[in-house]
């Protein structure tokens, strides 16, 4: 079989084997992945830019290293895509916004160069909700992404393009960012694996900031093992991000091979109330399969779950209103002319930002404005402490929590755009993980009756990605055999 036929099914392991056994070259993979991505982009709009020069240059380096018998990187020849909120030197980075339409970063995000340093081939930049604000990818200034599994439906958001690029088969893995669910929710909608690591596990250097205390960088992949391999490459302390942790990065791929026998799982009851029954049925079936693999399941409670949405929309928008102040027409490409400085700021921002970004900047500015700080921002930070404590207490009783990722599967394009609050509610099960900063992921666990993918969400203790991967890997192994 030729590489162009294989491109949609390769894994990191099979690429490595193929390269070392001279079945194909990294250059052939780069060309096949680029062709595949360009072709499928017509239907899905998952890419905003392609980077053939970077992909081919790195592929040639990999091929040369193999020919000379030098070190072959952990991601040698692996085609990847990166969400357009991560800076890529010399490759346009728009954040899905008109205000950055012509922005070319002068440096690479840490997570991006770490991928390429291990031999990954950067195929392109993926579409996303503007500045990562959205749950459906309909807030992109460059048009919505269509879900490769059902083209009339959204891929989820905000990292919709990164999920779709993996689901459509163009890349083996991709990077997204998650502030309230923006990796896990699109992973579940598109039927791929998506990981939000512990806060501080992956450097945020070069990630255009939305809400700094909540922003996470993490991988999407076709399977759990590949997601774990990519996370291991991008994780670890980075002096460019003072919030990145020194904690050593575990060898996930080895640790996840341990059996699940005796592992204690908690089902937080608050995540099963108000769940659409078809999604609920799939999740309950997955839990029964985990039981059959030796897990001990018990009900637990995370009593402050229902306050997460309010808490999140205060903290995230407050931080966003501050972070996005830098887009003022002075440094980053777009400017609307005016006679004086303050009109220049206002006109540039008024013309450059989309509706949802304006809404969140407004909400964030309001909650931080004089007289409201204690009532909103401080209150939300206190509630955040309670939500975080819920996780700490529950995870003292059990090793992991399993829940649905979203109350419903992928919805139709246009279905929720007129009601911001209804759209926000699609993140109701994922926001808590970002607020607490615990590792969490979505692993595919079946389909709804109409054939749409459903994701199972797993939470573990801070820096215990190994248990999370172990659970996901053993489940995947069992269900795909």
């Amino acid at each position, binding site marked *: 079989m030729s590489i162009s036929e294989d491109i949609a099914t390769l894994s990191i392991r099979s690429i490595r084997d193929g390269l070392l056994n001279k079945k194909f070259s990294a250059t052939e993979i780069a060309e096949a992945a680029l062709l595949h991505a360009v072709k499928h982009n017509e239907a899905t709009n998952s890419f905003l830019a392609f980077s053939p020069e970077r992909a081919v240059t790195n592929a040639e380096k990999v091929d040369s290293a193999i020919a000379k018998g030098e070190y072959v990187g952990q991601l040698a020849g692996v085609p990847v895509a990166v969400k357009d909120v991560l800076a890529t030197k010399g490759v346009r980075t728009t954040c899905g916004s008109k205000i950055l339409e012509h*922005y*070319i970063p*002068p440096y690479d995000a840490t997570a991006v160069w770490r991928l390429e340093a291990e031999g990954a081939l950067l195929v392109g930049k993926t579409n996303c909700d503007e500045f990562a604000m959205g749950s459906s990818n309909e807030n992109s200034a460059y048009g919505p992404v269509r879900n490769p599994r059902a083209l009339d439906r959204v891929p989820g958001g905000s990292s919709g393009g990164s999920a779709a690029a993996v689901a459509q088969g163009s890349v083996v893995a991709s990077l997204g960012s998650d502030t309230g669910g923006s990796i896990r929710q699109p992973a579940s909608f598109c039927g791929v694996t998506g990981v939000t690591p*512990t*806060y*501080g596990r992956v450097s945020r250097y070069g990630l255009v900031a939305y809400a700094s*205390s909540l922003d996470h960088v993490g991988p999407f992949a076709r399977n759990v093992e590949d997601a774990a391999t990519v996370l291991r490459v991008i994780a670890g302390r980075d*002096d460019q991000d003072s919030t990145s*942790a*020194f*904690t050593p990065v575990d060898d996930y791929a080895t640790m996840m091979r341990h059996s699940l026998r005796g592992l204690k799982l908690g089902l937080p009851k608050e995540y099963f109330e108000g769940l659409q029954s078809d999604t609920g049925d799939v999740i309950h079936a997955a839990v029964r399969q985990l039981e059959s693999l030796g897990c001990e399941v018990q009900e637990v409670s995370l009593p402050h779950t*229902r*306050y997460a*949405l*309010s*808490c999140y*929309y205060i903290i995230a928008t407050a931080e966003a*209103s501050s972070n996005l*102040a830098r887009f*003022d027409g*002075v*440094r980053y*490409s*777009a*400017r609307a002319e*005016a006679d*004086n*400085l303050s009109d*220049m700021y*206002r*006109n540039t*921002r*008024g*013309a450059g*930002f989309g*509706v949802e970004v*304006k*809404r969140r*900047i*407004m*909400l964030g*500015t*309001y909650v931080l*404005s004089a007289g409201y700080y204690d009532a*909103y921002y*401080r*209150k*939300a*930070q*206190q*509630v*955040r*402490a*309670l939500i*975080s404590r819920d996780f700490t207490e529950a995870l003292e009783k059990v090793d992991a929590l399993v829940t649905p990722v979203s109350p419903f599967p992928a919805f139709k394009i246009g279905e929720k755009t007129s009601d*911001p*609050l209804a759209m*926000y509610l699609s993140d109701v099960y994922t926001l808590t993980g970002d607020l607490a*900063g615990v590792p969490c992921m979505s692993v595919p666990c079946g389909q709804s009756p109409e054939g749409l993918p459903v994701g199972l969400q797993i939470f573990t203790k801070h*820096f215990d990605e190994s248990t999370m991967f172990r659970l996901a890997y053993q489940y995947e192994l069992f269900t795909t055999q």
Partner: protein
Amino acid sequence: MILSDEEVRYVADLANLRLSEEEVRHMARDLGQILTHIEQLNELDTRNVTAMSQVLFDEDETATLREDVPHVTLSNAEALANAPASGAGYYKVPKVIER
């Protein structure tokens, strides 16, 4: 909770955002709806709860400090490359102070 158009314009001013009259009306409705939802936080007694501003990990107080040694950073030309207007090594903006 209802926000007046006046309040919306005041906040837009703080945020340096030019909004059209239509945007002001929509914003008043949407923000009002969201702020009403957010009021549920008042159900919780948080008098003795320490605010959480960041996810913290255990480390020495000075662990995140690095050695104070010079290193190569962006050149002036690279830093200015994306500026819509620049000159003589600076960003150019509309005149701020009248002579």
